[in-house]
């Protein structure tokens, strides 16, 4: 994920509604992952890190959840 490095600390706000450009913590296939939210054809999608994979559409019926929105990224300097 651009802007987030291994070992960074993320501050997450569960109260926020997801919108275009947000970075979200998602629970997919039994694991927490970080995804960027984009809008394609008017729908919110999760952009996978690997560009060869298709974006995942966000709908009520999906078996993943957006757990919270990342509001700050804290990077360890030493």
């Amino acid at each position, binding site marked *: 994920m651009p802007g987030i490095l291994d070992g960074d600390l993320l501050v997450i706000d*569960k109260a926020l509604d997801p919108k275009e450009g947000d970075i979200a913590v998602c*629970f997919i296939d039994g694991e927490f992952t970080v995804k960027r939210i984009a809008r394609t054809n008017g729908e919110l999608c999760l952009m996978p890190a690997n560009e060869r994979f298709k974006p995942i559409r966000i709908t009520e019926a999906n078996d993943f959840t957006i757990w919270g929105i990342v509001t700050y990224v804290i990077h360890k300097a030493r």
Partner: protein
Amino acid sequence: MFALVDCNNFYVSCERVFNPALIGKPVVVLSNNDGCFIARSDEAKALGLPMGGPAFKFRDILEKNRVRVFSANFPLYGDMSSRVMATIGDLAPEIEIYSIDEAFIDLGSFSRFGLEHHAARIRATVRKHTGIPVSIGIGSTKTLAKAANRMAKKNPGYEGVCMISTQKEIIDALATLKVDDIWGIGRQWNRLLETRNIRTALDYSRAPASWIRKNLHIPGIRIQEELNGHSCLRLEQVRPPKQSICTSRSFGRTVTALDELQQAVATFAGKCSRKLRKEGSVASMLTVFICTSPFEEPHRKYRGTRTLAMPRPSQDTISVIRAAELALASIYREGFEYKKAGVIVSGLAPAQSFGRELTLFDTEAAAGNDRQKSLMEAMERINRRYGPAAVRIAAENEDAWKPNQAMKSAHYTTGWSDIITLGG
């Protein structure tokens, strides 16, 4: 109108927030020392695992159905409770934290037709902000709100919010509510009521008041009045059930300084621990709340709530006061005029299984209850003056008793080393 907001299968729901893979699967949480079921997911209930059932007796069912079993993680539950209560407090003018997972709110200022809508909003907000699902019951008395909450839980059709307000709704609700499910009616009363063929809440509401007065006295009358829609119990007036003990008071004047609040909270904590000893219980969790008057201007209004896990289950005054002081320090804000404070101890368990404290506080207490009491009070006074650990019981040895908690989840919200790690 009153509403009761109650977290669904609270401990299980806390586990699910940080481990969503548990959603839809049978999950149970065990008491201290991994003994009995203290929380069950709906799926686990459907398997016939009873509340309070000893885990070893149900081993076959647990294994065959791959039930996920957790040791109690009170630091997590306490912290999540604080978050849930703070969220409810933001949306309700006046709130009574009734237990770790229940709160009464007074919806008096909302118009009758907006009530269900507002309750649905509280439910959705708590769910979104904390991840915890709640059910809300609304009625003109606390007892009816409690009954409505039960219906909201039992019947998915209500989508988590049930209001009983018309005469017909009240009668229908009471007819389906068994007497021993009425708030405040215990097993002994239930047996007595059975002999009179009083089986439902509707029967109870219509029973002759003279008989109730004679046999169940004022508390029994109060319940009948409440079932009939006459509110007798204001917010914060009732003694909580045995799962928790609450001591709280409104101050006669406004209090602003931390040391004054400390004194009040220490006094309440001391009272709680005395009640614990009287009931032969130890507490696993402790909640402190402080608040300004609900009628203050918004920017002068503040409510702080903090629930902590006790270092180990305890009934000892010093430990309880020490936990209360920690909790208070974390919620105190300067510049507010405080009107009320309180201490709640919860996660109660019988003291028998908790070792050495007993020899000091229970068996000896029989010999010299007064001496015991004055010892505890002297200790409280010394410690209030010279700091929380100035004198303490030598038997208070953190390592003496380590609970067996083999299947405990992480301290996701209270320990930096335990925060969730993300994949790519």
